[in-house]
C-alpha cells in the first residue's frame, strides 16, 4: 500500500465519524390519507395534482456543521409538469419553527394565503419555505406581501425534489440560537401557485367547490385555512393524529365570509 493512502483513509474516516457525531436530526411522521385539511378538502381536478401529492408523510430537520437541511416526504412521487427545474412543481411547504419556546415571543399570525394562526404559546420565530419557484421570486413575494415577517422567513438558495422528498438547506445560524431538538415545528403543505391572488404568498386557494386549479371543500371566502396537511399530535404518524389535525384546522366563518374563528396550529415538539 502506498504510504499516503493509510493516513488519507484515517483522515477521511475521522471526518466521516466527526460529521456523523455532530449531525443532529429531528424527525416527525404524519398519517397518510389525511391530506384533506380540516377533513373535507379535495384536490383540484387537473391531472397534474396527483393523489397523495399534498399528503405529508414525514418531516426531517438535520443540523450538520453550520447548515440545517429540511426534508419533507409526501405521499406520491414528485413530478415537474410545469418545468420548474427543481424536480417538483405543484407543492409548496412552509416549516414554522418556535425556537425559543417562550409564550408571546414570535408571530401568532400565519403567512398570507394560509389563513392560519398560532396560539401565543406556539408563536413561531422562523419559517423555512420550500418552493419550486426561484429563491429570489419567493423572497421578493415575502418582502412585498409579508414584509412584517421578512427577517423571520428563510428561503433555501436551492430547493430540490427527488423521489417523494422535497429538501432545502439554510444556515443554522440564521435559524437562531438553541438546540434544534428542543424547538417546536409545524409543517404546512400547500400548493405552488405561480399566479397567486394579490395578497397570497404564492399559495393556491381553497374554494367551496374544487376547480381545475383550485382546491375544494372549503369556502369561497378567506375564513378557511388554505392548508392541505399539517403535523398534529405528537408527530408519530398515529392514526389518532388525523383527528388532532381536524381540531387544529377547525374554523368558523361570519355570514359575509370573514373569519369568525381562524384555524390555530399547534407546534409539535419532541
Amino acid at each position, binding site marked *: 500500500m502506498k504510504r499516503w493512502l493509510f493516513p488519507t483513509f484515517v483522515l477521511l474516516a475521522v471526518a466521516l465519524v466527526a460529521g456523523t457525531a455532530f449531525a443532529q436530526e429531528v424527525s416527525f411522521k404524519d398519517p397518510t390519507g389525511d391530506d384533506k385539511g380540516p377533513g373535507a378538502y379535495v384536490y383540484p381536478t387537473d391531472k397534474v395534482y396527483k393523489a397523495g401529492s399534498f399528503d405529508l408523510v414525514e418531516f426531517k430537520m438535520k443540523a450538520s456543521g453550520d447548515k440545517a437541511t429540511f426534508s419533507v*416526504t409526501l405521499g406520491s*412521487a414528485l413530478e415537474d409538469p410545469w418545468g420548474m427545474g427543481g424536480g417538483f412543481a405543484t407543492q409548496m411547504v412552509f416549516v414554522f419553527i418556535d425556537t425559543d419556546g417562550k409564550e408571546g415571543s414570535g408571530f401568532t399570525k400565519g403567512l398570507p394565503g394560509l389563513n392560519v394562526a398560532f396560539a401565543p404559546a406556539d408563536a413561531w420565530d422562523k419559517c423555512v419555505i420550500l418552493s419550486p419557484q426561484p429563491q429570489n*421570486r419567493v423572497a*421578493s413575494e415575502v418582502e412585498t406581501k409579508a414584509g412584517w415577517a421578512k427577517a423571520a422567513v428563510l428561503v433555501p438558495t436551492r430547493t430540490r425534489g427527488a423521489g417523494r422528498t422535497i429538501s432545502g438547506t439554510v444556515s443554522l445560524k440564521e435559524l437562531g440560537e438553541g438546540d434544534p431538538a428542543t424547538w417546536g415545528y409545524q409543517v404546512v403543505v400547500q400548493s405552488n401557485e405561480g399566479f397567486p391572488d394579490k395578497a397570497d404568498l404564492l399559495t393556491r386557494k381553497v374554494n367551496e367547490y374544487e376547480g*381545475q386549479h383550485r382546491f375544494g371543500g372549503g369556502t369561497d371566502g378567506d375564513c378557511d385555512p388554505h392548508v392541505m396537511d399539517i403535523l398534529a399530535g405528537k408527530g408519530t404518524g398515529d392514526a389518532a393524529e388525523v383527528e388532532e389535525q381536524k381540531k387544529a384546522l377547525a374554523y368558523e366563518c361570519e355570514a359575509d365570509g370573514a373569519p369568525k374563528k381562524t384555524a390555530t396550529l399547534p407546534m409539535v415538539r419532541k
Partner: protein
Amino acid sequence: MRTTKTLGLVLLLVAVAVSGTAWAQQGPQFTISGTTYTKWLWGNSRDQGALYNFKDAPGEGYGDNGQGTEIELLLNAKVSKAVEVNARIHSRFYQNFWTNMGGWGQPSEDCSGSGTSVGCGEFDPRSNQYIKLRGVTVTLTPGYSWLDSATIGSSDWGMFDPYVVGRIRYIDRDNVQGLLFQGSAMDKALTWDAARISLPRLWAGPEYKTGNFHVADGAYVGQFKYSGGSTWDIGGLVQWVNDIEVDSRDINWDDGKDTRMRFRNTVFGAKVGIHPNATVDAKAAFYYSTYESASDLAPASFGMNGYSPVPAGKHDDWSGKLNLDFADLGGSGFGVNVEAFHIGAEYASAMAARRESDVLLTEGHDSTWALPGPGNATYGIWGGNPTVIGYGGWEGNAQQVATINVDNQFTDFNEPMAETAIGWRGITVTPTYQSGNLELAGEYTYLTYDTNWQAWGDDSRAITNSPFPAMDMQVGMASYRSAYAPFQDKTTHIALLKGKYVIETGKGIDLFGKIKLISETDKRLNDAKYLPYLPGDCATSGDLGCENQKNFYSTGNSTADFFNNPGVITGANGQVGYQWKPFNDVSDDDRDLSYVMIQAGAGYQWTRDLYGSLEYIYYDADLEDGNTAFQAYNMMEMASGKHQKNQLIAKFRYTLGGLSECGLVYEYNFGTFKPDYGDGFVPTTASEETASSVHVPVGSLGFFNRYGGWNTMEKREFDQQRLKAYLKILF
C-alpha cells in the same frame, strides 16, 4: 281592504329588506386582474415576420427581431355561490411591433404578412393591436349530490390524459371550448368527468381540417378515477370524435338535410397505479384507438410526403407503457426509474396533447436539431426556404407527444420543443443519485420502431400512394413531426449522464454539466426487391447510361417511380458522369448517426434579485444519411457529413417586488457542416442564379437532384446570434 294593502306593503318591504341582507352577505363579487408582457427579440437572421421565433404555417410570419407589448385582462365574477364567470380579453404580440406605433404603421408592400413580412398595419388583425375576446367560462356548482360542477366554455382540458385528450394550447390555453361535467361519489374516492368538446377546425381532422360543415363537430369524452386509499388507484376513459358533413347526395331538403361522416376516432384508455410505500411506485397504462375517414371527403392518400394529423383511411392500433420507480433505495440517495413503452404506428387520437405534455421518460433528441437541413431548414434545396427557427434550434431536449399532430408554433428558441413519439417502442432506465450538494442522473434508452417496414408496410400499393403523412420525411439531423417513412429499419440508443453540484462559497455556485450519446442506424430499404431498377441497369464503365428497366416489387409497382435514374452530364472539372449516383444498392440510403453532446455551465445568485448563468454546449454529429442516389427523398437538404455545433448561452433572471418574471437569454450559435455525399456522380458548379436562390457561393460545387433542388458540397460555416429579453407583470 286598507289593512290588506298595508299588510302587503309591509310584507314587500320585509322581503326587500331580507333579500337586501342576503345580497349583502353573498352578493356578486367582480374582480379584474391582468398581466402585461413585453418582449424584445434580437438576432442576426434579421427576420421581422412576428414576435415569435417559430411559426411555419403557410401565410404566417416568424421573426427574431422586434419589440412588443401585450396585455390581458382577466375578469372574474362570482354571481352567487352556484355561478361563477371567468373571461379573458387579450391583445397578442403577433406583428404588434413598437415600430407600428400602436397599429398605425404604414402597411408593408407585401400585405400577405407571411414569412418575414410585417403585414398590413391597421388593416391586418395581426398588426393592429386590437384587444380581443380570448375565452369565457361559466362554472356552475349547483350543490347536487350527483354533480360537482358544470363548466361551459373555454378550458385547456388538462383533466384528461395526454394520450387521449391532452392539455391543449394553441396560441392561448383557452382556445378550445366545450361543455364539462364533473362529479364524484364515495366521499370523492370515485370521480368522473364527461365533456363535449367542439372540435378545433384548425387541426383536429385529416389534412388539418374538419371539412366545410364544422360547427356540429365534436369530441365526446368520459373518464373515471377510483382511488383505493393511498396505495392504489385505477382509471379509465373513452373518447369519440365525430366530424360530419352535410350529405350532398340528399336532395330532399323538406325533411332537413342528412349528414355523413368525414372522420371518426374512438379511443379507449385504462390505467392502474400501485403505490405500496415511499420507495416503490408502479403504473401501467393501455390505450386503443380506431379511426376512419371518408375517402371522398378527406384525403385517401398522402402521396410520398403529405401533411395531416392523422393517417388516411381506416386504422387501429394500441399504445401502452409500464413504469416502475424506485426512490432513495435504503436511504442511500440512489433511485432508479424504468419505463417500457409502445406507441403504435397507427395509433391516433385527434385530441391528444400536441406539446403541453411529455409522455415518455426519455430525454429523446436534442431540440437544437429540429428539422432536416444542417441549419434546421426544411426544403432548403430550393430558394425561399430558409430556416425558420435558426441554426440554434430550440433549447434543451425534446418532450415527446403521442401524436404526429405536433405543435411548436408561436414559440421562441428558449422554450421546449415537442417531438412525435408515434411508432416508438423500447425501454428507458434512468438511475438517479443525490447526496448533499451533488445530484447525478443518467439514462439509457433502447428504441426500436413500430414503423419499421418496407414500402409503407403494404406491397400492394405504390410507394407514392401512402396513407401515412410523412410530414417532412425522416431525413437529415431530425424532424420533430415526422413519424413515417416508406422504408425503415431503425434502432436508436440514447445514453447520458448529467450532474449538478453546488460549491458552498458566497451564495453558492451552481455547476452543471451533461454528456449525451446517441447511436442510430436505419437500413431503410433493406431488400433488393425494392431497388428501383434491375441489376446492372446503369453502366459503371465505358459508355455511361441507363437502360431504365424497372424492378417491380409487386404488380405494377416499382420504386423507380420515385427514385428514377440519373442522366449523364459533364461535371465541373470536365469529367463525364452521372448527375447523381444510380440507386443500385440497398446501402445507398443507409443512415448511421454517431452523436455526442457535451454541456458545462455555472450559475450564481449575484444579488438577492439577480441570478445569472453561463453555459457552453458542444455537439459533434457524424452522420451518414444516404448518398446522392437517395438524396434525402429528393426533397430535403442532404445532411450526410460531419456536423460540429457550439452554443454559448447566457441567462439572467431578475426579480423585484411586483415583477413576476423578468429575464434575458442570449445565444451564440456557431459551427460547421462538412458534407460527405459519397461517390458515383460528378458534381457541377452553382450558377449565379442558383447561388442567389439557395445562398451559396457562385461557382461552388454541388449537384442538382431529381427534382431540380441544389445540394451544395461546400463546407458551411454557421455564425448566428439571438437574444430574447422579457418582462411580465401581474396586476
